[in-house]
């Protein structure tokens, strides 16, 4: 969809929400809106797109209580704000919008979480990603390093960039709007997405990308939308396998899940953001046992999180059931950098080659 089409679609969608309310009130009715329930109990696997999406459960928000009425009022203010932004062809960050809401009196947001959540609601109703509202997150994207060439449309014109030769040690920084990137060509066999900066640097320093023709992506913890969109585009454009390498604890498995299946919070955009072909490389609970890695005891919260994952539809496979139950049994967790205990080269010379050939990648 072109930029203009997207803007037109979002304008139409947002105005139709306002019109519906206008008509309801004009008819003497209390305005209302229905939203899909956004919990893990309402996400379903979509066979055609192979990603998890919101199901049919909806909740009706009616302005009959002060809380719900205020919610609708806030939504109306945001719609008014986005309309203005689109008309004037300006954009702002989510944080800027939160601060602008300071002047909205009763409709002002209590915390940025709240305004972010409301924007996601609008994305769901309008079926337009927030870029179509001219809203973007303030965090810069993560980085990428490897044998690939792209063209980016910047404020200073088109730039062609090779992600090994034209960038510094830290790699190429993924921009907020991945739609502005054109994927030219590559020399890669697979992609490894890494949770921590330490491991990303270790692989670059050990020359892993050159030795195995790998594209390295730094996820920076829970990956931002732009990072996930980048992985999705690499996977769909070049049909490369994507491997996810994180710490061995329940929170890291959620990082993998959000890459592969989409996050609960953004299940409405799973088709654009998730990479269903992504595979979990490690660190597996069985690795802790097999390599006798330095480890920590699971905290109460960890155990709670693991148990909650056992009921999460995204983890409902035999592989995950086995691994999670094994971890609960051991009561241990390890960080990916724990491999350093076996020497700095161990991870690139032994663990990764071993694991990748086991998975049939090399």
């Amino acid at each position, binding site marked *: 969809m072109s930029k203009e089409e997207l803007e037109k679609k979002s304008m139409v969608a947002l105005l139709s929400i*306002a019109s519906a309310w*206008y008509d309801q*009130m*004009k008819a003497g009715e*209390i*305005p209302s809106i229905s939203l899909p329930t956004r919990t893990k109990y309402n996400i379903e696997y979509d066979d055609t797109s192979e990603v998890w999406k919101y199901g049919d459960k909806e909740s009706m928000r009616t302005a009959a209580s*002060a809380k719900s009425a*205020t919610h609708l009022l806030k939504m*109306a203010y945001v719609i008014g704000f986005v309309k203005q932004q689109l008309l004037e062809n300006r954009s702002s960050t989510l944080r800027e919008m939160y601060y602008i809401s300071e002047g909205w009196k009763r*409709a002002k947001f209590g915390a940025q979480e709240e305004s972010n959540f409301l924007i996601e609601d609008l994305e769901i109703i309008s079926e337009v990603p927030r870029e179509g509202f001219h809203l973007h997150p303030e965090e810069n994207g993560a980085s990428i390093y490897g044998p690939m060439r792209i063209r980016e449309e910047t404020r200073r014109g088109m730039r062609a960039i090779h992600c090994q030769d034209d960038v510094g040690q830290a790699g190429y920084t993924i921009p907020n709007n991945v739609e502005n990137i054109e994927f030219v060509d590559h020399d890669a066999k697979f992609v490894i997405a890494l949770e921590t900066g330490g491991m990303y640097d270790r692989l670059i320093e050990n020359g892993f990308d050159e030795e195995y023709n790998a594209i390295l992506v730094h996820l920076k913890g829970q990956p931002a939308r732009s990072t996930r969109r980048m992985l999705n585009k690499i996977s769909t454009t070049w049909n490369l396998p994507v491997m996810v390498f994180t710490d061995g604890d329940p929170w890291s498995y959620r990082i993998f899940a959000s890459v592969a299946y989409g996050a609960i919070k953004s299940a409405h955009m799973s088709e654009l953001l998730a990479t269903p072909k992504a595979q979990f490389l490690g660190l597996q609970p069985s690795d802790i046992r097999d390599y006798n890695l330095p480890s920590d005891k699971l905290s109460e919260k960890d155990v709670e999180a693991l148990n909650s994952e056992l009921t999460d539809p995204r983890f409902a496979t035999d592989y995950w059931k086995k691994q999670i139950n094994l971890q609960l049994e051991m009561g241990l967790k390890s960080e990916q950098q724990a491999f350093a205990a076996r020497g700095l080269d161990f991870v690139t010379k032994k663990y990764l080659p071993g694991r990748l050939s086991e998975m049939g990648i090399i």
Partner: protein
Amino acid sequence: MVLADELAKQQRSISVAEFFEKNKHLLGFDSPTRGVITTIKEAVDNALDACEEAQVLPDIFISIKKTGNDIFRIIVEDNGPGIVPAQVPFVFGKLLYGSRFHQIRQTRGQQGIGISAAVLYAQLTTGVPTIIISRTGPKETAHRFEIQIKIETNEPDIILQQPFEWDRIHGTRVQIEFKSTMSAKKKLLEYLKYTSVVNPHARIRVELDDEAFTFERVSQDVISCPTAIQQHPHGIEFGQLKRMAATSEQKLSDFLVETFSRVGKKTAQEMCGKAGLKGTAKVKGLSSDELKTLLAAMQAVVVPAPPTTQCLSPIGEELIRRGLDKEFQMDFVAARTRPSSVYSGHPFMVEAAIGYGGRLPFEGNVIILRFANRVPLMYQQGACVITQCVANVNWKIYNLSQQGLPMGPVLILVHVASTNVPFTSESKDAIAGIPEIEKEIMLALQDLGRELKIFLSRRDKNKVAEDRARAVCAIIPELAAKVSEIVEKPLIDTSPIEGKLMHKIIAKKWTRDEKVTIEVSNYTGHEEEISVYDISSDNAANAAPKPEFVSEVDGQFTKVWKATIPPQTVWLVSYTGKGGGMLDIRGIEDTKKMVVDLDV
């Protein structure tokens, strides 16, 4: 033999006073901090008991002054009947001396240890004798004593006794000086506050160094003094029976009928028959074994419960509510007095109350007020059956949150009145878990829980209605304005939504550009005659229409308009001003009106 002789030389009887000197904790004097509270507690208990016996409204004065390093002078003065001079040395200078110990009725103090223990404690820590002034009536002279206790013999040591010129007509004043600290000041004031709750007929004034507090009286009725009853055959133990038998000159059946409560000729015969004893036998002549079979028979025979009304003195639901209202300002208070009941032959009665909201702290555990015979229990809350019962009730079904104890702005009061309150220890801090008492407490609490639930759900209902009114009257018009602006269409009038939702009189007040507007819409379907009360700092000099009536107090103007509003019409007034203040509609039921300040 030689060793036994040696030991025999050292063996001698121990005086009670000596025993308590070594076991201060048994009496609540284990720490200097507790000493103050225990002393005041004993003195106040005695004063209240004495006033009750004399049927006067208690006026109690307490003063605590620091006289030296860690030395405090404590004065407690009452307007009770006073003590005859011959008895004063024994009441204050001899441990275990009392008139109520052998009586079977509800009293605050029981063992007669209390106040003389404080005298002993003073003697041990400062050596200053205790000063007592007492007067028994307007025609009698007051006497002033300086007293200590002879520790070896547990006899009073009168250092000084002289007539005294005293302005009180009758009453007693005790002045004790001992080593202590005031770190428990909060606890002390709490104790007095709680005492005042269950003794609403008493006025208590306290001077703490330079601070003064008064706990006012809210009831002018003297509480009726409980009268003593006879021992119940189910509540007696072997030693007691043996002692009673030894001093009796009666035949067995007469002894049973005349000494015990609720035992008639027939019951006495049944007991004798069960024990295999002759009713005509002399009680004095019975052997220990015979007495044992008699005791077993007495407890096996069914005897009606002892009479409870005259020996117990419940506070009563009304007075508990008033007492709580006076010391804690709460949104809701309910009290329950259970019918009297009996455990092991001892009559008892449970009273309980529950309070919610108001000035109670919103977070944290419930506040539990425990009382035994109108005396607050200040320590060992966790060990007390009252606390256990509070924790055992499932408060969640009464809409309270609960983690062990219920949480939130809740206060629970439980009063156990009995001729013999089963304390867990001599310091009388906690009531033991007797199943009969537990059951009564649970029943009272569950009953109160149901009442609280009704209050809470009614309040929540009102909250929902208010919340809806706020949404409809204040937020929907703003939403309408914003939405009309977005879709670029004429502003929607939202009053039909208001009317549809609420068949009420709706009053709204708002301020724009220094202009205050009050709008009253009638959606009731009938013509309504109402008065609009508007109280704020605006004088509304240019109001149109003019108010019927304006009055000013401290810069606050009360404006009153009268209006007759036909159904489906709107009455309006506006004037120059800043707005704010308070708006009310009168002349219509509360359920049929809604007042909303749009500026809030």
